[in-house]
């Protein structure tokens, strides 16, 4: 319980210690003294922080989030960092994502396909501090690799690989092994932890881009 990034804190909600960030609440989520509870059961980033994984998150950063969905995790990140580029391709959740962007400075919503970074490289800047990858589809590793171009040399990839989305028919361990090998070609993996039982069959990965340019997709 030591190394939470500044901007994230453990607060008590209904007698329970939970992660929280400071910002305008969304919907009817629990708050206390201006802190909004950040649910580690639904947000994989919160789950990673909850287990003290060092993901390199800090105030002032500019980050790219792939698979923003309704923007719940994005909203908490926006409470901490300066700029969040939020990519989501499904129109339905984008409605909620827009509400998040309306209420928070620095959230840039982009209705784009994360498998096609060319389609947003004219908007998303280079040299970003963090790349969050939460698309939860079969192509999770190739999406992480294709989007490496947005990261600064000392930036970090933060992702939770979901075994069931990559291949619902194979054992999670086997799926993760393949995924790590694929990621390993473009990134140096700094930490990898299973998020079970909170997020079953998810492998959280923090990685740093390898210096060569071979894998710029």
């Amino acid at each position, binding site marked *: 319980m030591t190394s939470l990034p500044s901007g994230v804190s453990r607060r008590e909600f209904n007698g329970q210690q939970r992660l929280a960030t400071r910002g305008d609440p969304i919907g009817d989520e629990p708050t206390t003294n201006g802190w909004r509870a950040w649910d580690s*059961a*639904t947000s994989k980033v919160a789950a990673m922080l909850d287990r003290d994984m060092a993901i390199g998150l800090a105030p002032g950063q500019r980050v790219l989030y792939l698979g923003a*969905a*309704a923007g719940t995790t994005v909203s908490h990140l926006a409470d901490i960092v*300066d*700029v969040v580029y939020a990519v989501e*391709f*499904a*129109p*339905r*959740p*984008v*409605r909620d*994502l*827009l509400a998040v*962007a*309306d209420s928070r*400075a*620095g*959230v*840039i*919503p*982009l*209705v784009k*396909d994360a*498998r096609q970074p*060319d*389609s*947003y*490289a*004219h*908007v*998303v*800047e*280079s*040299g970003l501090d963090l790349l969050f990858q939460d698309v*939860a*589809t*079969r*192509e999770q590793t190739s999406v992480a690799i294709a989007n490496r*171009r*947005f990261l600064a040399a000392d930036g970090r990839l933060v992702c939770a690989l979901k*075994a*069931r*989305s990559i291949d*619902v*028919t*194979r*054992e*999670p361990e086997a799926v993760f092994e393949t995924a790590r090998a694929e990621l390993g070609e473009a990134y140096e993996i700094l930490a990898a932890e299973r998020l079970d*039982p909170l997020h*079953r*069959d998810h492998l959280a990965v923090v990685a740093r881009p390898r210096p060569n340019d071979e894998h*710029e997709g």
Partner: protein
Amino acid sequence: MDADGDGAWFDGLDLTNEEVAARSIARGEAASPRDWPALAVETGVVTDEATYYRRLQAIAIAAAREAVSRYEGADDRQVVHAVNTMDDLDRTANELAERVAEWAGSLGHDDIAGPGDVARLADREPAGMLAERLHDVAQTVVRMREDRNTLASTIERTVPEFAPNLSEMAGPILSARLIALAGDLERLAKLPSGTVQVLGAEDALFAHLEGHAPSPKHGVIFTHEYVRGTPPAHRGSAARALAGKLSIAARIDHYSGDYRPEIHAALDERIARIQERDA
């Protein structure tokens, strides 16, 4: 400014014209990102980065709103065709590939031993008239496999739009198969979970009803890790638990359409308990 479309979204634009700028965000592209905020300040598009982000946000929101308003809703019936076609492509490509491999062997391609080797043959320069024909068919196989994969990606993209809970639970492809077996999402939502459990095992079910086979414990949901990954002795319970939650997921997707994390957590727990039992 790049003429080849490799520039910033704000290149050559008057940022006060939101509509035009939004279109540039929606349609533009670039091969590699650059430090756009710094560039915008340098070229005098904005006075400082804070202003840049404010403008960008407003215009990106307008572009996203426009993209969403064009959305008409994905059609579950289209997905039924798509997944059936995908399976047909799979089956046909495999059958053809086996034939090609057999033929290739007789032409002396000793390394083309099975359907998996056909792509290699398609890359090879054919020598002779018959070899050319074989080569054509090998390329057809490769193209069919490509079509199959793009179809799979499209399904993965559309199913979560109208069935977010089902596709979270079973993955988009298996979800599409279940919807196809039921007919459409509404029919899947109305099926008893016992039927969902054996969807795709109709032959075995009829054999059972006619009295000459045990009742099937699972249909297509057998491919799900929660069933396959459970020791055989408890697979029936796992399949029942999974089918029960899939039914709930289908109902939520059909009747309300919002994503409910708690049903997924409940299934995870249930399966964990089943898998803990002694075999």
